C-alpha cells in the first residue's frame, strides 16, 4: 500500500496549514467560535445524526464559517433526534431537535449567519450535558 507516500503528502499539508493558521490566530480560541455539538448516541445515530454532522462540517467549511463541530452523548431528547446544541459566542446555548440536512441548512442560513432563532428549539430549563 502507498502508506509512506501518503505520510509525505501529509507532511506537506502540515506545512501549508501551519502557515495558514499563523494568519488567523483566532482559531485558537474556541470561545470565539460558533460551537455545535451533535448528539451522537444510539438514538441519534439511528435517526441520522451522522449525516447531519458530516453535512454541518462540510457546509460550514464550504461557506467559510469558522465553527467547531463536535460530538456529544445522549442529551435525553431521544424523541427529537438528531439533536444539536448550538452556541453562538457570547450567547446561551440552544438545542434544536429533528435536525436533518434541510434543517441544518436553515440553521446555518438563519441562526448562524443572521442570528435569527428558528422553530424547533427544545425549550424547558435546559442544562448542558457537561453540567449533568
Amino acid at each position, binding site marked *: *500500500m502507498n502508506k509512506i507516500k501518503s505520510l509525505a503528502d*501529509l*507532511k506537506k499539508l502540515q506545512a501549508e496549514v*501551519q502557515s495558514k493558521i499563523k494568519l488567523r490566530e483566532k482559531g485558537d480560541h474556541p470561545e470565539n467560535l460558533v460551537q455545535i455539538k451533535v448528539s451522537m448516541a444510539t438514538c441519534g*445515530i*439511528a435517526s441520522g445524526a451522522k449525516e447531519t454532522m458530516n453535512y454541518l*462540517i462540510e457546509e460550514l467549511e464550504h461557506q467559510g464559517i469558522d465553527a467547531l463541530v463536535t460530538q456529544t452523548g*445522549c442529551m435525553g431528547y431521544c424523541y427529537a433526534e438528531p439533536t444539536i446544541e448550538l452556541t453562538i459566542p457570547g450567547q446561551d446555548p440552544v438545542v434544536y431537535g429533528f435536525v436533518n440536512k434541510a434543517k441544518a441548512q436553515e440553521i446555518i442560513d438563519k441562526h448562524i449567519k443572521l442570528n435569527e432563532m428558528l422553530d424547533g428549539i427544545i425549550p424547558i430549563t435546559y442544562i448542558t450535558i457537561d453540567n449533568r
Partner: protein
Amino acid sequence: MKDLSLHILDIVQNSIRARSSLIEIEIEEKPEQNRLVITISDNGSGMTPEQLKRAIDPFYTSRSTRKVGLGLPLLKQNAEMTGGSFRIESETGKGTTVEAVFGLNHIDRPVMGDLVGTLLILICSQEETNYVFKHQTPSGEFELDTRVIKQTLENVKITQPEVRSFLKEILQENLEQIQISE
C-alpha cells in the same frame, strides 16, 4: 441501525464515554469462511463483572439521561440474525473488547455503509482519543494509526478542515482498493 458503519460509530461511542485513549477498530472480511468480523477494543475504564452481565440487557444503561441502552443489544441481534455470534469482554481499569461475527453472504447482513464518514467523525472530532483502524479483505489490507498522523502533523490539529479532507481522500482511495463486492 441501517448499516454496519453506524453500528461501529455507535459502539465506539461507548469507548469514548469510557475515557479510552486508544480505540482499535478491526474489520475482517473472510469470504472463504463466509464470515465478517468486527472487533472494537479500547483501553477505557472497563466494566465490573456485574455491569458486564447486564451490558447486553436493553433495559440497562450507565446513562442517567434515559432508561434504555440499545447499542450492544442491537448489534448482538443483527450479528446473530445472520448466523454469526457476539462476544464482549471487559475488565475494570483495563478496557473492553466487543466482537461481532456476521455471516458475510447472509441475506440479512446489513451492508457496510459509509465507513469513511464514520471514521472521519471519530478521527477528526476527538483530539484526545487515538484510533487504530484495520480493514482486511482477500484483496488487501489497510491500516491507519492516528498516532502516526498526529506525530506528522506536529502542532497542526487533526480537527482542521484541511486535514479532514486529506484523510477523507486517503480513506476513500485505500478502502476502494481493497473492496470486495457486497
